[in-house]
């Protein structure tokens, strides 16, 4: 790698460097820090999920009717589903050993596909799990306070618009990523 067949290669290889060296202690420290960060993130997500579930269980106990209790139960199930999916997606991230086993093309395409799938499928794993609980909660409120049904409809329209907005934004992001993947595929087939 020290043969210079042209002056630009020679220019590149002879450029002055800072000579940065990283000690093994420093590497172990940083690797440990990284592992701890992942551990704490997982703990935080689990704690948030448990806390929300505890809150809904508390609501369930004080709920005025069976419909409310069912809705809170569905919210708990939805929360657990989202937490499990979040954990699975976080575990699917590329590990350094995988980086060495695949070439740049495969790695880069894999990263883009992972990001695309994550946002393209936002509906089934992130938005949909809360829908059953929300629908039953609506029924519960409509039965408990029939005089406020128009306010409820107004709020529902807002929530549906929010869900559709998030979904559309993610679909747009997925299309941008797909264009990059197509570019890579075209480049690899040239």
């Amino acid at each position, binding site marked *: 790698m020290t043969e210079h067949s042209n002056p630009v290669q020679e*220019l590149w290889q002879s450029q002055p460097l800072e000579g940065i060296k990283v*000690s*093994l202690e420093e590497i172990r420290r940083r690797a440990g820090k990284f592992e701890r960060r992942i551990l704490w993130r997982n703990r935080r997500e689990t704690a948030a999920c448990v806390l929300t579930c505890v809150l809904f269980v508390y609501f369930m106990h004080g709920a005025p009717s069976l419909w409310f209790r069912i809705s809170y139960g569905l919210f708990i199930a939805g929360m657990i589903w989202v937490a499990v999916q979040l954990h699975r997606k976080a575990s699917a991230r590329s590990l350094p050993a995988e980086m060495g086993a695949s070439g740049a093309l495969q790695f880069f395409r894999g990263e883009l596909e992972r990001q695309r799938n994550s946002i393209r499928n936002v509906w089934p794993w992130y938005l949909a799990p809360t829908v059953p609980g929300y629908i039953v909660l609506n029924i519960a409120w409509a039965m408990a306070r029939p005089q406020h049904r128009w306010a409820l409809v107004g709020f529902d329209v807002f929530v549906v618009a929010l869900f559709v907005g998030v979904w559309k934004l993610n679909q747009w992001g997925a299309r941008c990523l797909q264009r990059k993947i197509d570019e890579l595929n075209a480049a690899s087939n040239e």
Partner: protein
Amino acid sequence: MSAIEAIPVAAASEQDELYQEAAHAHGAALERLARAYEADAELRRDLLQEIHVALWRSFNGFDRRCSLRTWIYRVAHNVAASHVLRERRANAQTLVGLEELEQLPDANRGPAAADRSHALNRLLELIQRLKPLDRNVILAYLEGMDAASIAEISGLSPGNVATKIHRIKQVLARQFQQRAVPAGPVRAEEAHD
């Protein structure tokens, strides 16, 4: 920061030994690679450390199905490409392919081109404008690797790599003709930071 030589080799595991071998043989090339992927000095140091950590962690799963050099460059390029993906969200710089780079005007006009340090800065600017995959190929080429090694690192077919190298040579010939790269060392303070 203490040097890696300070670690007693006898106490090191195979993972540590592989890392030390990699850092010793390819440390300079990794630093050049980090420079090609990150212009900001502070972020570049972070990126280089990230590459070293990823390299050390990767040796835990090194299966020797490819050469040590190929493994090192794959990990380093893939960490750097992830860095580019992350940082591009922060600075919306448009990256181009080799094809677009061929359309750039000839840079061999003006007094700046005659200076070696300016030539190096110009080379860095060109590389930093490239999309990660093309950057991968040009860097491996500049490190003096042959088409087969570049294909192994990049994951592209040898034919595709040959086409890209042909384009790279054309771009470099246009941008850095022999007279534009004067002989002699570049002083550290002149180099791109």
